[in-house]
């Protein structure tokens, strides 16, 4: 008996639930059919569109988008024209039509074709022989500064003096393409270009000598003391280090030690040190140390 009652109640509840679901579905379908707006399904930034309306009588049309908010009187049953200027920004738009009641519809405006490449390259100066020391990021934008998210192939080309250009193709993901590369062996300008269809963006990275390597010094006694100077200071790849690179000369005169910092000028660092007795001079720059130079005492 009890199971009979339970079964009866369950079937009653299932029936009620089914009726409720059917009513909700009917209401949704009716609601969808009542929306008097027919918004575009594939609008593109900077292109005019038309929104069809149903019914008759006066109404007020509203549009709210990423960079626009407009209100316009209209007649139901007529098309509402939106100009290219009103749809320049990619994103979601809400169209609202108010007569006796308000109805709304949402639509998306997609970005246009790439028109500008934003190309970020780092660093502006890079020492030679640096692993993965140079990188670049490209973001394609359309003429209205909307990020173009559709996949596209960007070609990166790197050209350094004295070596053959290298290039690689990278596809954009979510509107971004990037690369990373090591700097070359020779100092000088590295031209980097990013191209997408007929768009090209160019940047230059100045490749500079790395840290000094194999310092060698020479010296001689003068009336004022001793004059010491380096041979041309170069990095391990043979590139002359930039002017201003500091070389530290150290002179040991018995128990006395004196230091002089001298900048490289035209590849050579030079210093005059005061010492009367026999002296041992050495030089260092960065992590590089040079030979020791022994000079006898003055007459």
């Amino acid at each position: 008996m009890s199971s009979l009652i339970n079964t009866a109640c369950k079937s009653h509840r299932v029936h009620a639930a089914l009726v409720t679901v059917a009513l909700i579905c009917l209401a949704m379908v009716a609601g969808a059919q009542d929306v008097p707006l027919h918004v575009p399904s594939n609008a593109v930034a900077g292109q005019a569109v038309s929104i069809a309306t149903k019914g008759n009588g006066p109404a007020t049309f509203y549009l709210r988008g990423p960079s626009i908010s407009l209100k316009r009187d209209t007649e139901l049953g007529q098309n509402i024209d939106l100009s290219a200027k009103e749809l320049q920004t990619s994103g979601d738009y809400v169209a609202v039509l108010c007569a006796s009641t308000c109805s709304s519809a949402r639509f998306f405006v997609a970005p246009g074709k790439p028109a500008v490449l934003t190309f970020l390259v780092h660093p502006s100066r890079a020492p030679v022989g640096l692993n993965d020391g140079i990188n670049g990021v490209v973001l394609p934008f359309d003429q209205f500064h909307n990020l173009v998210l559709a996949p596209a192939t960007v070609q990166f080309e790197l050209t350094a003096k004295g070596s053959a250009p290298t290039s690689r193709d990278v596809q954009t993901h979510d509107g971004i393409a990037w690369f990373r590369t090591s700097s070359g062996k020779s100092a000088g300008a590295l031209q980097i270009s990013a191209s997408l269809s007929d768009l090209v963006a160019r940047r230059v990275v100045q490749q500079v000598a790395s840290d000094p390597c194999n310092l060698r010094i020479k010296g001689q006694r003068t009336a004022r003391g001793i004059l010491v100077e380096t041979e041309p200071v170069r990095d391990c790849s043979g590139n002359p280090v930039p002017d201003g690179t500091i070389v530290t000369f150290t002179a040991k005169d018995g128990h006395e030690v004196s230091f002089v910092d001298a900048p490289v000028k035209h590849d050579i660092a030079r210093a005059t040190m005061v010492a009367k007795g026999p002296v041992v001079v050495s030089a260092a720059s960065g992590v590089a140390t040079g030979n020791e130079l022994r000079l006898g005492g003055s007459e």
Partner: protein
Amino acid sequence: MKKDLCNTEHHAWLRVFALIVLVLLSSSTLFAVDNSPQVTLDASNTGPRSVETLTQRAIVRDYKFAWANLDVALESNSAGPLNGLFAGPANDCLRGTVSSQQRSGMTSRYLNQRHKLEAIFYAPVGDVIELHDTAEYDFEIHDGGKTIHNEHAIVHYVVLMTPGADRWVIRQLQAVPQF
């Protein structure tokens, strides 16, 4: 007897249903007390550079503040709250919205915001980050004092942020149909 038992159970079921409806109807009021945006960030799959913990915190803080101020700006039709939080195209777009709302006499609101951010790309030197935001909010459009549109919206945004002097600023805030 069978009918009585069935009716009693049916009424009980109706009461529970009515209670659920009441709770659902009142929930929007209950939870609307704290209207500051809720922002979470998942940076577990970011490349090529990983996002440091402090950077993650700064991005969440600044993104939340930016959206809170965006709501204030579009509710009050004043571009002031946008200062320093948006730059470039995002700034131009929002200022365009504010000025066109002023002209049309409209205002809009983003209430009960929830943003689920996912960091997609973080540049090798950290000068730009791309985020995907699955945003959920109650979006209202008003004409004068009349509400002409009110919906609970789920919108996907592609976001570009760059580091400024003391904060991260939003450069691009572009809604897309899906990621």
